[in-house]
């Protein structure tokens, strides 16, 4: 078995092999692989005995299930109204400048990807962003630089 098959089998063992376990399994693959390849979707379908079309249908619905390989650290900057009012664009510019990538892009070393997302539920501490599952709030140009500098060292 190759590593992806292994991963999928383990996830299916952990969560179960019915359709109701599909989302946690898809999430598990994305967490490890940083995206859902066509190959992983077909493998998941096989492991759960579902049609590949069903897996594909579910997998393409959710914005956190990526279909393009993302970097080790996926940055999602909130673009909804309060963050937009509180300087989200400036934060984006700094990130783009430091990482030399634009929205939707991944650094050539595969370490960072940059995306925007909708309200993260931290509007009282806007602007906010996620790096993987970690939340960063009340961002300022200085604090974003500091945060990214730390990640660049990792």
């Amino acid at each position, binding site marked *: 078995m190759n590593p992806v098959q292994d991963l999928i089998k383990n996830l299916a063992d952990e969560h179960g092999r019915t359709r109701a376990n599909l989302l946690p399994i898809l999430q598990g693959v994305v967490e490890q692989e940083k995206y859902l390849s066509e190959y992983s979707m077909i493998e998941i379908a096989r492991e759960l005995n579902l049609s590949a079309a069903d897996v594909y249908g579910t997998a393409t619905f959710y*914005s*956190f299930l990526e279909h393009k390989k993302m970097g080790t650290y996926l940055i999602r900057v909130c673009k909804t*109204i*309060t963050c*937009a009012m509180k300087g989200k664009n400036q934060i984006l510019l700094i990130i783009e400048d430091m990482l030399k990538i634009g929205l939707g892009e991944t650094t050539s070393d595969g370490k960072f990807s940059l995306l925007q997302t909708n*309200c993260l*539920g931290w*509007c009282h501490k806007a602007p906010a962003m996620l790096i993987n599952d970690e939340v960063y709030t009340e961002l300022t140009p200085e604090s974003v630089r500091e945060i990214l500098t730390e990640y660049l060292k990792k």
Partner: protein
Amino acid sequence: MVAHSYQLKRADFIFKNENDWERILDKTLKRPPQELINELMSSELKGRGGAGFPTGLKWKLTAEDPSDEKFVICNADEGEPGTFKDREILSKVPYKVLMAMAVCGYVIGSQKGYIYLRGEYKFLVPELNKVIQEFEYYCKQIGHQFSIKIFLGSGAYICGEETALFESMEGKRGEPRNKPPYPSSNGYMGKATVVNNVETLAHTFTIFKYGAKKFYDLGVQYSRGSKLFSVSGDTPKPGIYELELGMSLQDFVNEFGDGDTKAVQVGGASGFLVPRKRFEKTTIGYRGKLTGISLPTGGSMMLYNSSRSMYNVLDNYLEFFREESCGQCTPCRVGCQQLHFGIKAVKRGDKPAQYLDKLLKLTETMQLTAKCGLGQSVANSFSSIVENFREEMIY
């Protein structure tokens, strides 16, 4: 006619630490289910997720359903722009929510609870799982069968809609179902299910501990109790506040505004924008016989001062709806897109100002024909912004 003006009244139930929850749970589980339903009914607690359905009635209908298996689901999808209170409850007083779920299970006859937690709050999982483990252990000790599992969302606002939430938990696309049938008979896996918002569940703790009267005495007629408000935007004190229902928006702005408040968005992007001239006449609560306008809300209160362009605000909301529409029905999928293109075209001068009236008609159609609350409620913010700030849409 001038609306009643109610002073802003703070309350402090939700975040109050209750060290005796185990005793309260024991006591509550010894009361007959019907008595607990009556307690909830007489408190007049209404759902805090936005729709305001009476919680006691919801539990009663589900309790009466003959389903062989039933479920209790805590809706922690919290995706409405400007709402951030449910996360705070789950991090500060999670045991209240777990206890409420177990009591609901006891009342309706269910041994299985789920918390549908938005993926954006994944960082809460380890701590929450710890509390759940301790809680389940305690339930077992007192001989009560109830398990709780966290189900993580994956970045889809629509999954907060209860039937889309079921679909998502069943491993499908989060596309809302037709209603009826309602969750009280056909919910998760086609079984009778109670879906309650995190805050609603936390309020039931207060009611079971202190009695319905304590809760009922807060607020005003038709809008009883307190409610958490998520306050953000142009305000010197953004944050989460527990206030009694029934306050006038003017009192709210006096307390939270920055002295230059031009408008308040009540209820998030799917709610209403209230301009300054209507602050006095608007109260916050469920629709009832209050004079003036009464606006229900999941608690999102976004303040905008005079430096803000209402065009930019609407543009941002419409982008949100376009992205978050599940795309299942045409009025919503195409409607959101057309509204967004439409205001841009008017702004650019490619369409005459009268085109806005066409767009307003379109939102009326969406309100009538869209399948779920998302498509139906786009009209709320669209018409309240376009009608009150027409100039800003054009120039």
